[in-house]
């Protein structure tokens, strides 16, 4: 039978999408050459959204763990960056190191919270975000509620800084997508989905459930942390209540839910939708925010597989599906 079967290759649609994605990436990297500052700034935000959505989706969509406390890592990385800059580190080094330092907190945390399930996990994460915020606010550097600005970044030329942060955001988002793609196509992806579908059965076929969950948890934490430090770099102002705000979770939830929980393309679509909604209706203030939530509820109840699910139903195949197909015939 050797050589009689193999994994299905990339479909033509997906090939097109990947090629298109590569073009978009190239285009993005070149944007600072021709795009206005406005465009660059907006795209930076979009990239941060993509990174957040991808990170959160890893945990919720593939490991079945809904966290409403991932703002912990967003806020914490900002704080670490501030602290590191205060010690005299150059800001860009601090941005990178701050995000990585989040692992120091996420790793021990994972030992505890990953033993919790479902709602207990969700709520415990939220309380942890609040707890970490309280602790961070003890540091006189952040001045309690008020927070602090990353003023050292202002020393840099505005144009250069904007470009650098934008490129960093594009690379981070692209890296996030590539890493999650590799992971999900690999052994870990299958195992995490198995855990999501049935943790007990997954253990019974030899999946080290704790390890898999921990790896995914840490990756999603680092993803959020990188997004957090990019956010700080572009906003410059750090405020604990905002950085640790539940709103981050609501946004991540919205993007992933609307795009398609547990799909690869979903978070990207979700980020685009949120971005578009914000551009179009952001001026309606609270009613816009309420509307965004209502849309999320409607999706949760009536299209739980999101836009990607709708597309899949319409066209028969899911775009950029993580599904592995078995094909007859040697390569």
């Amino acid at each position, binding site marked *: *039978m*050797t*050589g*009689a*079967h*193999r*994994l299905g290759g990339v479909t033509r649609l997906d090939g097109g999408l990947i090629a298109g994605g590569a073009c978009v990436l190239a285009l993005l990297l070149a944007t600072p050459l021709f795009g206005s500052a406005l465009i660059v700034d907006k795209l930076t935000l979009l990239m941060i959204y993509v990174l957040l959505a991808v990170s959160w989706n890893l945990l919720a969509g593939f490991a079945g763990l809904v966290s409403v406390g991932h703002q912990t890592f967003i806020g914490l990385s900002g704080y670490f960056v501030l602290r590191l800059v205060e010690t005299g580190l150059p800001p860009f080094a601090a941005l990178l190191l701050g995000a990585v330092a989040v692992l120091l907190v996420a790793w021990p945390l994972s030992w505890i919270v990953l033993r919790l399930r479902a709602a207990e996990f969700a709520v415990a994460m939220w309380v942890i975000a609040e707890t970490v915020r309280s602790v961070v606010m003890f540091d006189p550097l952040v001045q309690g509620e008020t927070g602090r600005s990353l003023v050292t970044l202002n020393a840099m030329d505005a144009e250069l800084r904007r470009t650098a942060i934008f490129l960093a955001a594009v690379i981070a988002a692209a890296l996030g997508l590539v890493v999650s793609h590799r992971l999900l196509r690999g*052994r870990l992806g*299958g*195992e995490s*989905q*198995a855990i*999501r*579908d*049935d943790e*007990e*059965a*997954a*253990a*019974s*076929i*030899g*999946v*080290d*459930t704790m390890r898999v969950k921990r790896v995914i948890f840490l990756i999603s934490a680092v993803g959020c942390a990188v997004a957090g430090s990019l956010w700080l770099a572009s906003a410059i102002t750090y405020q604990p209540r905002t950085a640790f705000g539940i709103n981050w979770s609501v946004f991540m939830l919205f993007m992933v839910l609307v795009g398609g929980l*547990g799909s690869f393309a979903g978070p990207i679509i979700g980020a685009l939708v949120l971005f578009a909604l914000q551009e179009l209706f952001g001026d309606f203030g609270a009613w816009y925010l309420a509307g965004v939530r209502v849309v999320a509820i409607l999706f949760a109840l009536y299209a739980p597989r999101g836009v990607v699910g709708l597309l899949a139903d319409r066209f028969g195949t899911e775009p950029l599906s993580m*599904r*592995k*197909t*078995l094909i007859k015939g040697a390569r």
Partner: protein
Amino acid sequence: MTMIPIDSIQTADPVSAPRQDARVAIPHAPPALLADHLVKRYGSLKALDSVSFQASEGEAVGVVGPNGAGKTTLFGALAGTFPVNSGSIQFRGTEITGMSAQERNMMGIARTYQVPRPFRGMTIFENVLVALRAGGGAEGAVAVEQAAELLERTGLLPLANTPAGAVGLLDLKRLEVARALATRPQVILLDEIGGGLTEAELVKLIALIRGLSEAGLTIVWIEHILHALLKVVTRLVCMAEGRVLAEGDPQEVMADPAVRSAYFGADAE
């Protein structure tokens, strides 16, 4: 025995007579699986009430008993799905009582679920592939090839790329077997995998399991379809109310009055 004419079951056998070539355990080798005085409580209920059980290397053991006897619970305890309240379990002489389900699988114990528990979000192929990679330690093209082979053997190949959530119960039961086998076990615990199969399908199933047994796999099989069970197993354990009622040669166990009243529900007059 008023209600179950064993002879008639045997004559209805579509494959062959019961196996006579039972593999005899090597005298001093430790049993593949040894459970000693297992107790499992659910609140006030003792689902396992001091159950001792053993399966020698390469042996095929059948487990029968009325509903709620504790058969599935025994499987859970052996596979490490949940910890027992007391008692100990050994695998080839190694103490495994405190080990997790995953570690036991890694050592070579695989189980199927009576109520199938597929990974519904994944295809049949992916279900098997994840088991091959996680428990079976296979990688790359080899894993794919082995998955295809397992699917072939369990008759699931045509459904390979169908989501597991979308196939019927019988196919899910086959998937249970394929997925357990994918972890390359030395002991496989089969829980009512024959229920609901047609005669023709039963024939295939029996052939599959006998093949496994002949390849040296230790098999423990819970089944209510006796005639199928008896074509594979060389020893029978009957449980009732969390205890082992009788064990030994299948014919003798079936004839045991306690078994007849507890399991077959008929008054042993």
